[in-house]
């Protein structure tokens, strides 16, 4: 069942086409990842889907409701975790959650029960009476996620949820997100962290310059664009041309990265015996989503 559906969704700023005619379908209960370099249009897309930014063109349906006419009802079932900290610094940790619950008309007792629950879920129980300025960056991030759960959302929209977290915090958040998914909470996850996307997402869309370049399960994208392994070949400058000619003659898919050549889909063919015989110049490693990302969006800075 579709839970989010966009049609011809477009966002234009003065001289920038941030989101360019996107048709997106998110299934109920899945974790859907949005990947893309800075400025790819991920945040603009998310802001439209969460009804805080009006589309220039196109429309959005959430649970079959048109966002233009039902934004209140839709926002009531969304949990939004923004990229930038917008916790209320005038209030304590607990008051932040209680005040936020009030925006959703959650009765006081229930709000208190849920606040306590999400605080312990993210190991912030002992910080309930702290001021926001007393929290570390990681605690603020966890509190932002906890706050996004206060209305028991059916859809959780997360923009870079683990940015700035230490490894402990990161795994804690990944655990909780996986748990929420098993409870049926749909997740729309914007991230720059390829490992995160691989671990959490059922499907990912790779965005670039306002468009979705490719979409599919992480493993599916990896085997489609890169194969199961990447061979990194270190070449001397004088041998470069020869090696490239060799790779080309074997019909191999490759890319030059700095002083190295990355060869893809090598399992499908035989690698040059000369290269295989020089193991110190050759490194085989499992292919990752990051390889797909680079293949699709290029290696130069986009901004």
């Amino acid at each position: 069942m579709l839970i989010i559906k966009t049609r011809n969704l477009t966002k234009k700023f003065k001289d920038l086409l941030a989101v360019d005619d996107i048709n997106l379908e998110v299934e109920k209960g899945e974790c859907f990842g949005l990947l893309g370099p800075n400025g790819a249009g991920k945040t603009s897309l998310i802001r439209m889907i969460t009804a805080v930014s009006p589309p220039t063109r196109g429309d959005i349906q959430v649970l079959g409701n048109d966002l233009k006419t039902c934004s209140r009802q839709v926002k009531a079932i969304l949990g939004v975790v923004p990229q930038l900290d917008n916790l209320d610094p005038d209030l304590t940790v607990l008051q932040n959650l209680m005040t936020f619950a009030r925006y959703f008309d959650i009765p006081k007792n229930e709000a208190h029960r849920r606040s306590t629950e999400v605080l312990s879920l993210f190991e912030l129980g002992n910080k309930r009476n702290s001021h926001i300025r007393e929290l570390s960056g990681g605690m603020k991030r966890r509190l932002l996620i906890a706050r996004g759960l206060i209305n028991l959302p059916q859809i959780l929209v997360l923009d870079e949820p683990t940015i700035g977290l230490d490894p402990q915090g990161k795994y804690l958040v990944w655990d909780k997100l996986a748990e929420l998914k098993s409870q049926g909470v749909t997740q729309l996850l914007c991230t720059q962290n390829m490992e995160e996307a691989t671990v959490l997402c059922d499907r990912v869309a790779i965005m670039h310059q306002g468009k979705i370049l490719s979409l599919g399960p992480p493993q599916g994208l990896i085997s489609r664009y890169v194969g199961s392994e990447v061979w990194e070949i270190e070449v001397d400058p004088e041998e470069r041309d020869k090696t490239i000619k060799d790779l080309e003659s074997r019909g191999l898919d490759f890319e030059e990265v700095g002083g190295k050549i990355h060869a893809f889909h090598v399992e499908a063919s035989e690698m040059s015996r000369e290269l295989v015989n020089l193991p110190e110049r050759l490194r085989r490693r499992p292919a990752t989503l990051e390889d797909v990302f680079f293949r699709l969006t290029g290696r130069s800075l986009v901004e």
Partner: protein
Amino acid sequence: MKPFSWRFIRVWQRNRDVFFRLWHSEAPGSIAEPIIILVAMGLGLGAYVGLVDGQKYIEFIAPGIIAGYAMFSASFECTYGSYVRMEYQKTYDAIIATPLSVEDVIAGEIFWGATRSLLTGTIILAIAAIFQLVPSPWALLIPVLAFLEGIMFASIAILFTSFAPAIYSFNYYFTLFITPMFFFSGVFFPLSSFPKIVQTLSWIAPLTPVVHLSRALISGEFHIDLLWALALIIGLTALFFSISLVTMRRRLTV
């Protein structure tokens, strides 16, 4: 213009909670100043001022001080206060991701600004009453007037805030608009003592009709012109309130 809903009360409650949690960091100052002005001008300057009808000068300025400081309260709240919440704390962004709309947020801000006016107006009224400067029981309506006045000045302030490029912009708002109005709206001198042109300009300043009404409620002397004053306040309030909802939506939903 999109209308606001009852949900604005959530923003009002948020601001109330913060205010009563931090009141000691702000409120005493905002009450001390009008008292100092009242005493310094009323008793100090008042010793040299003879009014035509034999009224004491401190009695003359008390209603204007109430109206003036009620104006300052709403104006500070909805310029510096609102700007900090909007731009630095990103509180508005957080709230509009919940079932509240931009209009709910702005209405909540305006009604909270008006509540600040009501609180300030009522407290100064009580102090003026202690000084025996409040002869008429009609003065019990001063909180209502202060609240209405607060909606008007909060709306004007929010309108300016919706265009403000930086927090420093509010210096202009206060030095070129609010403070001059405080001096040219009949708070300290009867408007009739100004040249004709200033008198005309005074009637454009939104504080002038408030000072007239405040003076009438405190003295208990009414005049048909006061209906015009009331109509003017209501008209300006409706106008600025509606425009500010539109300009704020434009600023916040890019």
